[in-house]
């Protein structure tokens, strides 16, 4: 039993921290706010060179064959930097192709993801914004050449830069996941702006979009299990990223409380501030335990992996919101300004809170699992 990172894992964490401190400073995040793509091609390629994009992909397809723990370590650091770009959705989509794809699909997409030539995402949400597989309203109809897809997908992260979208749709066999390229006829992309300008969401419309037979990912009708698998990984990945944002807010608050003086003393000497910081640390440390327990459980195929993923998402979502919010309170007026960087992380944590199932959704999954 060892809850600590191995030396390789610690090395990955340290090097990610060092790289992002240098190459993903707040100024870089800000420079992407006005950018139409919202992400930097140069940064993406450097991440590929560092081996981050193929981290969890098999060595045969240009990856490093590592697991969810390592992915979570990276995502925590990316959250800490409020990194703007499609790392999480690309990682998730690629892991689904690796899990369920044919050899041809893997050859087509996985090396391209690992080298930074392709980005990917998952169109989880339909019109009614429900994370359950039963809620998918998009239809798949058979044609002589393959299929056509019709429906509306909402809040798809980074779809405007993706080379391939995983699109769940209901066909005659049931829920099925398709690999859809955005250039397909009848597919429309409409970016929407959320509070976190460094997270991009896109509404995707599908009007009889033709896709070939070989774009089905996994078995036709096998989409629910695959989406459940993906949702768990997404939940843990989002938890890791929120944890990073929260840790950054805590660090900034503690640093500020040491130097900001009022009434002739550093404000950190006042219990009102010190106790708030202690509570924030408690939430961050518990979030660390929840996130990495769940990541390990997914890697190990532990009996409680489904519960652990839901616990992590439900707990860390609440904790990160509280910690990031309290950090604004500790800072006072300066924390509420556009110029100060706190809102980068505050907004990142908030943007991830509803994604891959919000707290209410995961708490309901938990109760279903333990009590029926």
């Amino acid at each position, binding site marked *: 039993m060892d*809850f*600590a990172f191995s030396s390789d894992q610690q090395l990955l964490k340290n090097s990610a921290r060092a790289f992002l401190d240098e190459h993903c400073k707040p100024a870089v995040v800000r420079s992407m706010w006005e950018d139409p793509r919202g992400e930097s091609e140069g940064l993406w390629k450097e991440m590929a060179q560092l081996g981050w994009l193929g981290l969890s992909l098999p060595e045969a397809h240009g990856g490093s064959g590592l697991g969810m723990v390592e992915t979570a370590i990276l995502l925590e650091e990316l959250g800490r930097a409020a990194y703007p770009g499609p790392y999480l959705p690309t990682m998730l989509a690629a892991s689904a192709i690796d899990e369920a794809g044919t050899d041809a699909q893997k050859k087509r997409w996985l090396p391209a993801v690992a080298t930074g030539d392709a980005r990917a995402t998952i169109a989880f949400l339909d019109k009614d914004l429900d994370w359950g597989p039963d809620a998918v309203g998009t239809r798949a109809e058979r044609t002589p050449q393959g299929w056509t897809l019709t429906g509306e997908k909402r809040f798809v992260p980074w779809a405007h830069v993706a080379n391939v979208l995983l699109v769940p749709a209901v066909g005659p066999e049931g829920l099925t996941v398709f690999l859809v390229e955005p250039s397909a006829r009848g597919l429309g992309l409409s970016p929407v702006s959320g509070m976190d300008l460094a997270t991009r969401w896109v509404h995707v419309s599908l009007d009889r979009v033709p896709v070939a037979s070989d774009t089905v990912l996994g078995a036709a009708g096998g989409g629910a299990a695959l989406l459940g698998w993906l949702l768990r990984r997404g939940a843990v990945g989002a938890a890791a990223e929120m944890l990073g944002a929260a840790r950054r807010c805590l660090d900034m608050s503690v640093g500020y409380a040491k130097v900001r003086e009022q009434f002739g003393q550093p404000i*950190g000497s006042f219990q009102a501030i*010190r*106790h708030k910081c*202690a509570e924030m640390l408690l939430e961050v440390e518990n979030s660390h335990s*929840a996130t990495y327990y769940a990541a390990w459980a997914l890697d190990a195929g532990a009996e409680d992996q489904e519960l652990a993923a839901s616990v992590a998402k439900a707990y860390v979502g609440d904790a990160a919101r509280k910690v990031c919010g309290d950090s604004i309170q500790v800072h006072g007026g300066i924390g509420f300004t556009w110029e100060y960087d706190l809102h980068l992380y505050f907004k990142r944590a908030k943007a991830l809170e509803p994604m891959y199932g919000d707290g209410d959704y995961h*708490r309901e999954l938990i109760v279903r699992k333990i009590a029926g």
Partner: protein
Amino acid sequence: MDLNYAPEDLTFREATRKWFAANTPTHDLKTLDERKAWHRTLYEAGYVGMLWPKEYGGRGATPMQQAIVSDEMARVNAPPAINGLGIGFIGPTIIVHGTEQQKQRYLKKMLTAEEIWCQLYSEPNAGSDLAGLKTRAEDHGEHFVVNGQKIWTSSGPIADWGILLCRTDAKVPKHKGISCFLLNMRQPGVEVRPLKQITGSSLFSEVFMTNARAERSDLIGNLGQGWEIAQTTLGYERGGNSLGRVTRYASAFNQLVKATKELRRHGKPLIEDAAVRAKLGRIYADLEVQRYAALRVLSALQKGDAPGAGSSITKLSYTEFEKRYYELALEILGPEGQLLAPQHEFDEIDTSSGEPGTWAHAFLWSRAGTIYSGSSEIQKNVIGERVLGLPKEIRADRVKA
């Protein structure tokens, strides 16, 4: 990172599980004699003082083995050993700071519960500000004469010995004038008055010392070293049996789920009510996070890392959780949750300290955790100063010092 149990720990767990399946008493232990007998059985099986070195009668076990035993005991709701304060931290304090003579005299009888121990720290006017304590000990050569009052003394009425903090020098700054003694509770100068708690039971007491006698040979460490010794002592108290505690929470949670299937409101079982389900999900997630955190602490202890000020995070986390837990549980259960005598099987749950009771007892007992052994506010001060490195507050007593 690898959260699998090592093969030898699995083997140990299996043997432990078998032993408790065969030996756990099937009825509540009512008298002190019954509890002492159970303690003796545990001791003879090697399940008491597991972390103590072998030379002092312990087992020299790993923290993991100790955690496994507390976990297995919780699984079958086995009554805890008695003398918890003695074995958990007074004994270790004697092992670290005591003389060889003190070790020979006290440790074995503490382990076997032949002698029960209590802690004489808090006073009516020295709670969170423990260093402000006023009980004084006057040097009479071979012995000291002790006068003063202690409060919140667990096991006071049954204790044979106490570990005492008292002032031996009023002229030096307050933290420096405190000494630590082992005090015989069975003497005319010591009077114990039980203190009834909000749970209705009297686990605590007040202790009045009037010209009581403490032997010079029972001084721990040097004169004036008491505060320093107390710091290590409190550290032991905060390390603890976190895994077993979480398992007791989890068994209570299973009872809660049972209750929501049997109790009905608005014509349907509670479990079909979305608001109840949301609360259950919230408790479960919170409870599991306490378990993960316990495993994390355990893995660090197992590697020999001292918990240090980090143990304040653990204590703050589980005691605050415990309040949230039983508050939500009683919201779900309604008036059923307030019964003092069980009417259904699901009403019977242990408090986190392992005492049998009902939801009402667990709910009331949950108010103690954030006060005893350093209140939540004190823990937050410790975390702020020693973990986060925030500046110390400017305090009147520190300015004087």
